[in-house]
């Protein structure tokens, strides 16, 4: 019951990561996150091409 209450706490995930992981562990980036960063950069590139054509 107590753990259910704490999971509902605001900022629970960030707090847990801070207490359970060292800075070096927090620096590691998941593969799925890397793909999303590449995806975001692709969207950025496409947007800049659209700007170059339309502005």
């Amino acid at each position: 019951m107590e753990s259910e209450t704490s999971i509902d706490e605001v900022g629970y995930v960030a707090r847990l990561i801070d207490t359970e992981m060292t800075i070096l562990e927090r620096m590691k980036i998941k593969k799925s996150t890397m793909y999303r960063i590449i995806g975001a950069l692709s969207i950025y590139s496409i947007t800049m091409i659209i700007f170059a054509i339309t502005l």
Partner: protein
Amino acid sequence: MFEIIPIVIILAFLFETMDSCAGMGFGTGLTPLLLILGYEPLQVVPILLISEGITGFTSGFFHQEFENVNFKIKKPINKETKIMLNIAILGCIAIMMSVFLTYFAIKIETDLIKTYVAILVLAMGVIALFKLKSKTNSYKPKLLTFFSALAGFNKGIGAGGYGPVVMLGQIFSGIYEKTATAITSLSEGIVSLVGFASFIFLPVIMSQPVEIDFVLLPSVFTGGFIAALISPYMVRVLPNKMWRIVIPVYAISIGVYIMAKIYVL
């Protein structure tokens, strides 16, 4: 005209990095600097709004990805999502009111009101520094509603200081600093997009469309977008202890900057 302006990219990057890490400063810091560089308000304000809208969503998405926050779109939505939506809704009402007042040239923005915002931000920053040693900080939803409404009121009358009041208000209400940053980023993104839409559509409804100059957009967007990718990662990696100091110190410097703009510059 498509133009890349290096100084604007650097400024946008620096202010967006601090905005996505500390939840404040993009509009307050960047607007006067761009005006000093010789750009007109119509070249600056709508561009910062749309840019902050896009980078706010990007930063919010990556804050979630780096687990600084846990937003839930599916029902039942959790507390973090509810807080973000509450702040965003109050902010949207405020920014529409602000655009409305600007459009009808109702100028209630005086040095006195700006001084009040500067003092408020300074006081909140100083109190946050004094509260650094207290470890127990339980969640206080009523206090958070008060600060969201106060920030909305300030923005609504065009006095600025929205980010610092929302951000420090969340910290006073017991929200973990890293999570507060993520909530502020996404809610500011929503508020800025609504602000941009109001900027475009209100004049159209009133049959007097405004012509916006997009010359700054590629540069502001470039600096802001890169910062919105990097900042959530910095928030994750660097310890929360550091953010507990950086956020109030940055808020105090913004308060001093607003004050200096009124009385010195």
